[in-house]
Protein backbone atom coordinates (compact mmCIF):
# COMPACT_ATOMS: atom_id res chain seq x y z
CA UNK A 1 0.00 0.00 0.00
CA UNK A 2 3.02 2.22 0.57
CA UNK A 3 3.62 2.38 -3.20
CA UNK A 4 0.14 3.94 -3.71
CA UNK A 5 0.95 6.78 -1.33
CA UNK A 6 4.36 7.27 -2.96
CA UNK A 7 2.77 7.41 -6.45
CA UNK A 8 0.06 9.84 -5.29
CA UNK A 9 2.65 12.08 -3.62
CA UNK A 10 4.76 12.10 -6.80
CA UNK A 11 1.63 12.88 -8.85
CA UNK A 12 0.78 15.80 -6.54
CA UNK A 13 4.27 17.35 -6.74
CA UNK A 14 4.49 16.79 -10.50
CA UNK A 15 1.11 18.51 -10.95
CA UNK A 16 2.33 21.47 -8.87
CA UNK A 17 5.51 21.78 -10.96
CA UNK A 18 3.46 21.62 -14.18
CA UNK A 19 1.00 24.24 -12.92
CA UNK A 20 3.89 26.54 -12.00
CA UNK A 21 5.29 26.12 -15.51
CA UNK A 22 1.98 26.69 -17.28
CA UNK A 23 1.31 29.88 -15.29
CA UNK A 24 4.79 31.38 -15.18
CA UNK A 25 6.13 30.87 -18.71
CA UNK A 26 5.59 33.43 -21.44
CA UNK A 27 6.36 31.21 -24.42
CA UNK A 28 3.67 28.99 -25.96
CA UNK A 29 5.95 25.95 -26.22
CA UNK A 30 7.01 26.24 -22.57
CA UNK A 31 3.36 26.60 -21.48
CA UNK A 32 2.60 23.40 -23.40
CA UNK A 33 5.44 21.68 -21.53
CA UNK A 34 3.79 22.64 -18.24
CA UNK A 35 0.48 21.19 -19.42
CA UNK A 36 2.30 17.99 -20.48
CA UNK A 37 3.68 17.65 -16.95
CA UNK A 38 0.22 18.13 -15.44
CA UNK A 39 -1.23 15.45 -17.74
CA UNK A 40 1.70 13.19 -16.79
CA UNK A 41 0.80 13.66 -13.13
CA UNK A 42 -2.83 12.76 -13.89
CA UNK A 43 -1.64 9.57 -15.60
CA UNK A 44 0.50 8.60 -12.59
CA UNK A 45 -2.58 8.93 -10.37
CA UNK A 46 -4.77 6.96 -12.78
CA UNK A 47 -2.29 4.08 -13.03
CA UNK A 48 -1.81 4.04 -9.25
CA UNK A 49 -5.58 3.93 -8.62
CA UNK A 50 -6.04 1.21 -11.24
CA UNK A 51 -3.14 -0.91 -9.94
CA UNK A 52 -3.70 -0.68 -6.20
CA UNK A 53 -7.46 -0.21 -5.88
CA UNK A 54 -9.24 -1.69 -8.92
CA UNK A 55 -6.92 -3.90 -11.00
CA UNK A 56 -9.92 -5.92 -12.21
CA UNK A 57 -11.53 -2.87 -13.92
CA UNK A 58 -9.73 -2.09 -17.18
CA UNK A 59 -11.60 1.15 -17.71
CA UNK A 60 -8.79 2.63 -15.56
CA UNK A 61 -6.15 1.69 -18.15
CA UNK A 62 -8.48 2.88 -20.90
CA UNK A 63 -8.65 6.27 -19.18
CA UNK A 64 -4.82 6.44 -19.28
CA UNK A 65 -4.92 5.82 -23.03
CA UNK A 66 -7.44 8.68 -23.38
CA UNK A 67 -5.10 11.02 -21.43
CA UNK A 68 -2.20 9.97 -23.72
CA UNK A 69 -4.42 10.84 -26.69
CA UNK A 70 -5.17 14.23 -25.16
CA UNK A 71 -1.41 14.84 -24.75
CA UNK A 72 -0.82 14.08 -28.43
CA UNK A 73 -3.76 16.28 -29.50
CA UNK A 74 -2.56 19.14 -27.33
CA UNK A 75 0.84 18.94 -29.01
CA UNK A 76 -0.60 18.79 -32.54
CA UNK A 77 -3.07 21.65 -32.14
CA UNK A 78 -0.64 23.71 -30.02
CA UNK A 79 2.09 23.51 -32.63
CA UNK A 80 -0.44 24.25 -35.38
CA UNK A 81 -1.49 27.44 -33.58
CA UNK A 82 2.18 28.19 -32.82
CA UNK A 83 3.13 27.88 -36.48
CA UNK A 84 0.26 30.18 -37.54
CA UNK A 85 1.22 32.70 -34.86
CA UNK A 86 4.91 32.57 -35.81
CA UNK A 87 4.06 33.16 -39.48
CA UNK A 88 1.85 36.12 -38.63
CA UNK A 89 3.89 37.83 -35.91
CA UNK A 90 7.32 36.17 -35.94
CA UNK A 91 7.09 35.05 -32.31
CA UNK A 92 5.16 32.70 -30.03
CA UNK A 93 5.50 34.90 -26.95
CA UNK A 94 2.10 34.94 -25.26
CA UNK A 95 2.64 38.36 -23.64
CA UNK A 96 2.40 39.82 -27.15
CA UNK A 97 -0.78 37.88 -28.05
CA UNK A 98 -3.39 40.34 -26.89
CA UNK A 99 -5.52 40.64 -30.00
CA UNK A 100 -8.46 38.82 -28.44
CA UNK A 101 -8.51 41.05 -25.37
CA UNK A 102 -11.82 42.90 -25.22
Amino acid at each position, binding site marked *: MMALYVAL*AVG*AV*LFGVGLYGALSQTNLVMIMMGVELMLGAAMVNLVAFWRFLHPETYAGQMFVL*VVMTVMALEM*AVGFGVGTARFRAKGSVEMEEARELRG
Partner: protein
Amino acid sequence: MSAQALFTGFFGVAAVWFGVVVFRTSSMVRSALALLFSQAAIGAMFLAMQAEFLGVLQVMMMATEMSIMAIFMVMYMMDPGGLGEMEMTHQKRASIAAGALAALAAAGVAALTDWGPAAAAPPAAEQTERLGAEMLGRSMLIFETAGVTILTAMIAATAVAIERRRRR
Protein backbone atom coordinates in the same frame (compact mmCIF):
# COMPACT_ATOMS: atom_id res chain seq x y z
CA MET B 1 9.29 -0.35 2.51
CA SER B 2 8.66 -2.79 -0.33
CA ALA B 3 10.84 -2.93 -3.45
CA GLN B 4 7.84 -1.73 -5.48
CA ALA B 5 7.42 1.39 -3.33
CA LEU B 6 11.19 1.98 -3.47
CA PHE B 7 11.37 1.84 -7.28
CA THR B 8 8.15 3.83 -7.69
CA GLY B 9 9.61 6.49 -5.40
CA PHE B 10 13.00 6.47 -7.14
CA PHE B 11 11.53 6.99 -10.61
CA GLY B 12 9.01 9.45 -9.16
CA VAL B 13 11.79 11.61 -7.70
CA ALA B 14 13.55 11.43 -11.10
CA ALA B 15 10.33 12.54 -12.86
CA VAL B 16 9.87 15.49 -10.49
CA TRP B 17 13.57 16.45 -10.68
CA PHE B 18 13.61 16.50 -14.48
CA GLY B 19 10.24 18.31 -14.41
CA VAL B 20 11.83 21.09 -12.35
CA VAL B 21 14.87 21.19 -14.67
CA VAL B 22 12.49 21.87 -17.62
CA PHE B 23 11.78 25.35 -16.21
CA ARG B 24 15.19 25.97 -14.63
CA THR B 25 17.49 25.59 -17.62
CA SER B 26 17.82 28.41 -20.15
CA SER B 27 18.75 26.12 -23.07
CA MET B 28 15.66 24.97 -24.95
CA VAL B 29 17.21 21.71 -26.11
CA ARG B 30 18.09 20.83 -22.52
CA SER B 31 14.57 21.79 -21.51
CA ALA B 32 13.03 19.43 -24.10
CA LEU B 33 15.42 16.65 -23.10
CA ALA B 34 14.55 17.17 -19.42
CA LEU B 35 10.85 16.80 -20.27
CA LEU B 36 11.68 13.65 -22.25
CA PHE B 37 13.50 12.19 -19.23
CA SER B 38 10.67 13.24 -16.91
CA GLN B 39 8.08 11.50 -19.09
CA ALA B 40 10.35 8.44 -19.47
CA ALA B 41 10.65 8.31 -15.67
CA ILE B 42 6.83 8.36 -15.48
CA GLY B 43 6.87 5.39 -17.88
CA ALA B 44 9.36 3.64 -15.59
CA MET B 45 6.99 4.33 -12.68
CA PHE B 46 4.23 2.54 -14.62
CA LEU B 47 6.58 -0.42 -15.07
CA ALA B 48 7.38 -0.36 -11.33
CA MET B 49 3.62 -0.40 -10.66
CA GLN B 50 3.28 -3.49 -12.89
CA ALA B 51 1.38 -1.73 -15.69
CA GLU B 52 3.79 -3.06 -18.34
CA PHE B 53 1.83 -2.20 -21.48
CA LEU B 54 1.20 1.40 -20.43
CA GLY B 55 4.82 1.81 -19.29
CA VAL B 56 6.28 0.73 -22.61
CA LEU B 57 3.69 2.80 -24.51
CA GLN B 58 4.49 5.89 -22.44
CA VAL B 59 8.26 5.59 -23.05
CA MET B 60 7.79 4.99 -26.80
CA MET B 61 5.28 7.84 -27.25
CA MET B 62 7.23 10.37 -25.26
CA ALA B 63 10.55 9.58 -26.96
CA THR B 64 9.08 10.55 -30.33
CA GLU B 65 6.88 13.37 -29.02
CA MET B 66 9.66 15.15 -27.18
CA SER B 67 12.11 14.79 -30.08
CA ILE B 68 9.58 16.63 -32.27
CA MET B 69 9.04 19.18 -29.50
CA ALA B 70 12.80 19.85 -29.32
CA ILE B 71 12.85 20.71 -33.05
CA PHE B 72 9.88 23.09 -32.68
CA MET B 73 11.45 24.74 -29.64
CA VAL B 74 14.69 25.47 -31.45
CA MET B 75 12.67 26.82 -34.40
CA TYR B 76 10.35 29.10 -32.44
CA MET B 77 12.33 30.37 -29.48
CA MET B 78 13.99 33.74 -29.72
CA ASP B 79 17.01 32.51 -27.79
CA PRO B 80 17.07 28.69 -28.09
CA GLY B 81 20.61 28.30 -26.76
CA GLY B 82 19.86 30.41 -23.69
CA LEU B 83 23.05 32.42 -24.28
CA GLY B 84 21.28 35.79 -24.14
CA GLU B 85 19.92 35.11 -20.60
CA MET B 86 16.46 36.33 -21.68
CA GLU B 87 13.77 36.54 -19.00
CA MET B 88 10.93 34.34 -20.20
CA THR B 89 8.75 34.20 -17.11
CA HIS B 90 6.07 36.38 -15.62
CA GLN B 91 3.98 36.43 -12.40
CA LYS B 92 6.60 34.13 -10.86
CA ARG B 93 5.58 34.43 -7.19
CA ALA B 94 1.90 33.86 -7.89
CA SER B 95 2.79 30.84 -10.06
CA ILE B 96 4.99 29.33 -7.34
CA ALA B 97 2.21 29.90 -4.80
CA ALA B 98 -0.42 28.30 -7.09
CA GLY B 99 1.83 25.31 -7.85
CA ALA B 100 2.73 24.76 -4.19
CA LEU B 101 -0.91 25.12 -3.11
CA ALA B 102 -2.12 22.61 -5.73
CA ALA B 103 0.62 20.13 -4.80
CA LEU B 104 -0.12 20.48 -1.06
CA ALA B 105 -3.88 20.09 -1.56
CA ALA B 106 -3.45 16.97 -3.74
CA ALA B 107 -0.84 15.46 -1.39
CA GLY B 108 -3.07 16.25 1.60
CA VAL B 109 -6.06 14.47 0.08
CA ALA B 110 -3.83 11.49 -0.85
CA ALA B 111 -2.34 11.23 2.64
CA LEU B 112 -5.53 11.75 4.65
CA THR B 113 -7.81 9.40 2.73
CA ASP B 114 -8.12 5.79 3.79
CA TRP B 115 -7.71 3.93 0.52
CA GLY B 116 -8.27 0.45 1.97
CA PRO B 117 -6.15 -2.62 1.25
CA ALA B 118 -4.06 -2.89 -1.93
CA ALA B 119 -5.19 -5.44 -4.52
CA ALA B 120 -2.86 -7.89 -6.27
CA ALA B 121 -1.83 -7.09 -9.85
CA PRO B 122 -2.89 -9.41 -12.67
CA PRO B 123 -0.08 -10.94 -14.81
CA ALA B 124 1.20 -8.77 -17.70
CA ALA B 125 -0.13 -11.04 -20.50
CA GLU B 126 -3.59 -11.07 -18.91
CA GLN B 127 -3.52 -7.27 -18.58
CA THR B 128 -2.85 -6.76 -22.29
CA GLU B 129 -5.53 -9.27 -23.26
CA ARG B 130 -8.14 -7.76 -20.98
CA LEU B 131 -7.28 -4.21 -22.03
CA GLY B 132 -7.76 -5.28 -25.64
CA ALA B 133 -11.12 -6.81 -24.74
CA GLU B 134 -12.07 -3.61 -22.90
CA MET B 135 -11.08 -1.43 -25.87
CA LEU B 136 -12.97 -3.51 -28.40
CA GLY B 137 -15.92 -4.18 -26.10
CA ARG B 138 -17.33 -1.87 -23.45
CA SER B 139 -15.05 1.10 -24.29
CA MET B 140 -15.30 0.75 -28.06
CA LEU B 141 -17.11 4.09 -28.44
CA ILE B 142 -14.43 5.93 -26.43
CA PHE B 143 -11.69 4.22 -28.46
CA GLU B 144 -13.33 5.11 -31.76
CA THR B 145 -14.03 8.68 -30.61
CA ALA B 146 -10.33 9.07 -29.70
CA GLY B 147 -9.35 7.91 -33.18
CA VAL B 148 -11.73 10.31 -34.93
CA THR B 149 -10.63 13.15 -32.62
CA ILE B 150 -6.97 12.53 -33.53
CA LEU B 151 -7.87 12.65 -37.23
CA THR B 152 -9.84 15.88 -36.72
CA ALA B 153 -6.96 17.44 -34.77
CA MET B 154 -4.49 16.45 -37.51
CA ILE B 155 -6.62 18.12 -40.18
CA ALA B 156 -7.32 21.18 -37.98
CA ALA B 157 -3.64 21.62 -37.05
CA THR B 158 -2.58 21.37 -40.71
CA ALA B 159 -5.34 23.78 -41.79
CA VAL B 160 -4.32 26.32 -39.15
CA ALA B 161 -0.59 26.03 -39.84
CA ILE B 162 -0.69 26.00 -43.64
CA GLU B 163 0.47 29.14 -45.40
CA ARG B 164 -2.34 31.12 -47.01
CA ARG B 165 -1.64 32.45 -50.48
CA ARG B 166 -3.25 35.68 -51.53
CA ARG B 167 -5.53 35.56 -54.53
CA ARG B 168 -4.57 37.77 -57.44
